[in-house]
């Protein structure tokens, strides 16, 4: 399945979600949901195609990493929707997915085969778990953003477009907990598997390579948030802000490190 077709399917779904957001026509929403599911399935095909073309897990180029990131957002969202519903959450997630896919579309799709030294069973495990974690953390980011918008509307008593369409603060706060309780364990697992792979490939569990350092910073941010929520009972605005900051760290780990700093992870471009 060529990437372009998947991209177009997502673009249509996102457009429908936006139309729904403004019109609030429930028929449009049903169509948007179905189309997103179709796009998600096409995306599975695209990734499988890359796997067959490369001969190993397609997570070693920048294009594939970002594409997989978008894929994990989609399926994290679809798995959530299956369990519970958050009003107009889909629109925010769809826009984020579309942005990620646009980045993937613009980066080189040239196939680069990994040096044999790095071809290990830990590659798919480490990369898939780490990026899977990013999917859930991205959803948390969308929820946090919605929380901050709604909080602002309620505080300033400006009841515009968003106030009507966004769900209750408490609902969004629960969403935050959910995303964190799935995303954080996956993130932890991603770092652990990464260090096992590092030991195998380079002989050391941890070598303070920038990517590793930034993963650790991200992990610490989310660990702090989780601790505050569980131990001190933090909720509301501060959690939402920290969720947004945490996700910025995720994005910096993904991009900032690759483009601004160099290290052993730098083959992923």
């Amino acid at each position: 399945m060529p990437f372009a077709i998947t991209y177009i399917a997502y673009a249509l779904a996102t457009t429908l979600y936006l139309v729904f957001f403004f019109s609030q026509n429930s028929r449009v929403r049903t169509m948007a949901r179905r189309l997103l599911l179709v796009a998600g399935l096409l995306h599975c095909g695209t990734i499988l195609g890359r796997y067959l073309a490369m001969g190993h897990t397609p997570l070693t180029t920048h294009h594939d990493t970002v594409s997989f990131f978008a894929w994990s957002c989609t399926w994290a969202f679809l798995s959530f929707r299956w369990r519970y519903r958050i009003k107009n959450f889909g629109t925010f997630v769809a826009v984020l997915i579309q942005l990620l896919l646009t980045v993937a579309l613009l980066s080189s799709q040239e196939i680069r085969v990994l040096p044999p030294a790095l071809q290990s069973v830990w590659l798919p495990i480490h990369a898939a778990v780490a990026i899977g974690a990013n999917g859930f953390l991205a959803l948390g980011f969308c929820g946090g953003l919605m929380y901050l918008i709604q909080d602002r509307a309620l505080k300033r008593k400006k009841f515009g477009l968003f106030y009507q369409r966004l769900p209750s603060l408490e609902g969004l706060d629960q969403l935050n907990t959910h995303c964190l309780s799935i995303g954080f364990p996956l993130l932890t697992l991603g770092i652990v598997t990464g260090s096992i792979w590092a030991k195998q490939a380079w002989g050391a569990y941890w070598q303070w390579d920038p990517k590793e350092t930034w993963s650790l910073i991200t992990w610490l941010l989310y660990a702090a948030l989780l601790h505050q929520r569980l131990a001190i009972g933090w909720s509301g605005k501060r959690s939402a802000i920290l969720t947004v900051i945490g996700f910025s760290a995720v994005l910096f780990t993904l991009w900032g490190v690759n483009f601004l700093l160099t290290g052993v992870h730098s083959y992923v471009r």
Partner: protein
Amino acid sequence: MSVEQIVVLGVNHKTAPVAVREKLTFPDIEVPLSQLAATPNCREFCFLSTCNRVEVIFTTAAVDKGAKEVRALLFGASEISDSEAKEYTYLHQGEAAIRHLFRVGASLDSMVVGEPQILGQLKEAYRQATARKCTGVILNKLIHKAFSTAKRVRSETNIGSSAVSISYAAVQLARKIFGRLKGKKVLLAGAGEMAELAAEHLLTQGCTEVIVANRTLERGVKLAKSFGGKAVPLSDLEEQLAMVDIMVSSTGAPDLILTKSQVKPIMKRRRSRPLFFIDIAVPRDLDPEINELDNVYLYDVDDLSQVVEMNKNERQQEATRAERIVAEECAKLLAWLDNMALTPTISALRRKAEEIRLAEVQRSVGRMDLSESEKKSINKMTSAIINKLLHHPLLYLKEEECNPEERQRKLAEMRRVFGLDEG
């Protein structure tokens, strides 16, 4: 029967001032219904009386005479003359009458557009009328259609969903903060009417407990009892704020009763759980700066009025969509009324019989090897069966001596027996 025989006559808040409306009170609906039954020119009728309107929906062969009789009945208890009464009443006939009734049922003609009581009142009026056999085929169909139109308007538009009173606006905001209000606790400081109303709304929306804090404990205890909650002295305010989720304040205090510096430590004790303050008092009870604290939302009367204004605008937009639904349903009913005439019923009956005959003949003849003349005689024979079978039903329908109401009943009966309105 012609559509023009359907009439609605009445007074409402738009056509008559309250000084006139208050003279038209009918505490016992039995009285106007039996009076209407005695008027010579009302065939079917239904009598609707609410605080903002009194109207009679009826069918009549002589509209002018019937209207005059109904007016005399409505204004009978007052000294208002018929010519003056004419000024205060509206008279809708035919399609306009149908549309009027649908709009009333869908709460588009109400003082507060979208308020839900009117449908219940119309249902009750209809129940009373049917219990005394005042309605017939036409009004039964018409009023049932008014019910289903109202239901469609409720489910397809948001006309009833937005809050147009201060107390309800408070509930709407609470839901934006807490989602479901189930299990939430309310603290009522002071005892004003509006605050009580807000507390009542919050309770019906799922809040589990109301705590009343009042300057005089005695009054507080009384109020708390009516909500099934407990009363505390006003000095306990800060203690209670650590526990509740919503505070409605309406004390008559001349100064602020709560300041930002008092709420700040409370939020720590609450572990930052959101707290919603509603300040209905004038002068205000709560320091406006409280709103600056994280996870605290403070709304005073002006803020709530702003929500009410916004909702009114939205309701107006929804009303436009509702009018479209009313127009659609109106057209459907008019089509039904057209069919209720004698000629269309007879031709529909013949057409249905002919369709059945042809289908059956074709099925049988197709399997048999018959000559042209044999086919012809089979056609002849089946046609004869149909005609003989329909002969008496048609005579029954056409009977000259039956009155118009009897004819309507017969038409409806025939259409039902032969399933002419199905599919």
